[in-house]
């Protein structure tokens, strides 16, 4: 399968140089590779996205998509997997989307270990609504609603996901495309809830590319043991001159839908022909 078969007719309206382009490019490559390698058929892939600049990715890939309400990327993913376990689902959310409006779904779906990939376009800002603070906005960041600078301590999404039992916890960076590509591919191949917080460059409101580039390093090249939970926590806290990217933690665990359904494929099951036996109980 060619990458360009995923090209959509929708006009792309992201700003020049936006990190979302890199995520988009990489995701299309990953999908092509998945199809090519026989992991999945293209019609079985479903993406879902929130509302925000990131969300437009649903329009920018010609593949099944569920363009959600703001903050609600996760529940439809869970629903569609319950309806049809065979689907390969990938969610894209903004940091506002994932950590503000929709954080309850994220927490619990991680805990349940739904077999889904969840990619956060973390530009540390509500971009589409023209710049307001999100849970990952750094202290001091100025916006119209906080003209003197944000004073709320940011959330650490990796730590949050580790605390909630996600079975694949990673960080990507739009400034390192090959790394991001390999990361997303691994996430999508992970059986269980795979979470990637992607440091996403937003030239218009939070141009972090040059700031993060010199700091970022691949922790998987430095002998980090992805099965060591404590080490993962330790690494998740690192945010100074060095910013680790890569897989922080990965573990095997039975997935939600198998536990709920076994091998049943509800979307293809015939309706129950009669409820008489249950009605009988009430006689």
């Amino acid at each position, binding site marked *: 399968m060619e990458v360009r078969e995923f090209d959509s007719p929708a006009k792309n309206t992201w700003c020049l140089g936006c990190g979302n382009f890199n995520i988009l490019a990489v995701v299309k490559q990953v999908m092509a590779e998945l199809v090519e390698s026989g992991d999945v058929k293209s*019609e079985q892939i479903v993406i879902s996205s929130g509302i925000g600049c990131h969300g437009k990715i649903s329009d920018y890939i010609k593949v099944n998509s569920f363009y959600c309400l703001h903050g609600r990327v*996760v*529940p439809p993913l869970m*629903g*569609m997997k319950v309806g049809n376990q065979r*689907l390969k689902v990938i969610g894209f959310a903004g940091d506002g989307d994932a950590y503000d409006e929709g954080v309850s779904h994220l927490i619990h779906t991680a805990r349940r270990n739904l077999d889904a990939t969840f990619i956060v376009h973390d530009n540390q800002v509500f971009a589409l609504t023209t710049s307001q603070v999100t849970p990952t906005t750094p202290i001091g960041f100025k916006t119209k609603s906080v003209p003197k600078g944000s004073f709320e301590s940011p959330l650490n999404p990796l730590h949050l996901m580790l605390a909630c039992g996600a079975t694949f916890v990673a960080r990507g960076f739009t400034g390192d495309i090959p790394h991001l590509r390999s990361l997303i591919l691994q996430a999508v191949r992970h059986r269980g809830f795979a979470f990637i917080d992607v440091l996403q460059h937003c030239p218009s409101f939070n141009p972090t590319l040059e700031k993060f580039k010199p700091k970022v390093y691949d922790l998987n090249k430095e002998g980090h043991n992805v099965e060591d939970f404590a080490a993962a926590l330790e690494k998740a806290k690192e945010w100074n001159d060095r910013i680790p990217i890569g897989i922080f933690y990965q573990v095997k665990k039975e997935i939600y839908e198998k536990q709920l359904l076994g091998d049943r494929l509800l979307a293809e*099951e015939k309706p129950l022909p009669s409820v008489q036996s249950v009605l009988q109980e009430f006689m």
Partner: protein
Amino acid sequence: MQDISFLIGGEAGDGVMRTAELLGKAFNRLGLYSFVINDYPSLIRGGHNFCKVRASNHQVWSHLEAVELVAALNQDTISRHENELTKDGLVLFDSDKASYKGSYKAYPIPLSSMVKEVGGIPIMRNSAMIGAIAHLYGIPLEPVNEILTWAYGKRAEKNITLAKMGFDHAKQNFDPILKLEPVKRDPTPFISGVEAVSLGAVKAGMKVYIGYPMTPSTRILSFMGTHQDELGIAVIHPENEIGVANMALGVAYGGARCMVGTAGGGFALMQEAFSMAGQSEIPAVFVVGQRPAPAVGVPTYTAQADLRFVLHVGHGEFPRIVVAPGDPEEAFVKGGEAMNLAWRYQVPVVVLVDKHLLESYMSIAIDERKVNVEPSSVAESWDGEYKRYKFTDSGVSPMVFPGTLGAVVKVSSYEHDEHGYAIETPEGVTNMLQKRLRKMEGIIEDLKKRETVKIHGDPKAENLVVAWGSTKGAALDAMQLIDKPLKFLQVMYLSPFPTWDVEDHLKQAKDIVCVEVNMTGQLRSLIREQTGHYIEKAILKNDGRPFDPVGLSGKLKEAFGWK
């Protein structure tokens, strides 16, 4: 005509509801028609619970407020309910726990001692009480024992012994009230709205039920959960109602029929997703159980005050269907219809019920052939590139699911073009909005072939009662108590509003009274909005309790100037 009505009361945890349901079931098996209403506060132990049980040799639709017997497991029950007794009323009570010195006849029975005697646990007092009640209504022990065996299986033995002890004690000490005559009739279930609406949905193809517990819909979750294997369904209880509703959209997008259940407060949280169902044209069925609100309100009681709220949920304009069944049989049929309509027209559908309908049990015939999986708008094939939102005359676009070879299925919360890509042009917006709104025409034509209202009583009567939902029961029974010609228009579909079925009745009527369990006359306002007809007379209340047929008949007579 035989028509009995009694009350069983005790503390929460005393097993009152179970007992009442078992008795109701026993009467039902005898061929009588029974009705059981429960009344309990929002707590787990110690508060006052009671049930009213009615049984008759003709169909009954409601409980009666007045009872001829108060069966009390504790003192509190007597003091609270003595005043509900009819003239020759009796007070049957556990003489180990309570005493009675009032003006009604006292039937003391040492239930606790009996339990001690057989080495049972306190909850078994109920079985002895059941035995005593059986005697009072002239029922032999066999059917009682059958029910106890059905209920307790291997552990039934002591209960059967206690039933006999209660029966014998009563036989020796108390005069029976009457001898109930078993009736020969086709057996019907003794069932509540909870089970009926659930089974209707399943019969219409439901594969997934999602709910976050909230009275009075929690029992749907419980019923679906305990019967998931027999029904071949998956049951999910996720993090909150917002998750529930958005998940349900995912299930349907994935290709499986799904229903969710909640109460007013939970439904308030689902509004954005409801609007999303409208925008994305994903079939979704919401069972909304009303209880007194605003906010948490009076959680374990009943109301019909969310009609307007439900009719207008969700921002923006899009077709939605709201149907309000009035009894378990209708809950079964309309529950199934809701699912079928959702999938034929790709719209959100609300089944609007209330605590009284959901939790009260009654004998009622349910014909499962009335509900089937009807043809939906799922496509087998299509021309050219697949378009999820293809413009059609009906406004309904053929639907396929992800996983379908050759189709890219894109749904969106944004206004979109036929393929599902976001758009903003005035023409594009108008076309898609109108495509969706156009579906209402098809829905209306469809509903014209279904039962949207029911006419009860004398179809030629000039005096008209209008009501909806569970008030049906009290209204039907109240009419039995009025010896004047009376017609009762029960409105089942609220959106789209069936003017075609309603208007003539309003025009023909000389005098109309609208009866609702709310204080603002919501159906009345809807009728005025939809037909211009202003119903001047209304019987309204919103105190958590359903209407009592006797009280209602009095109010109706007064309203019609008959007393």
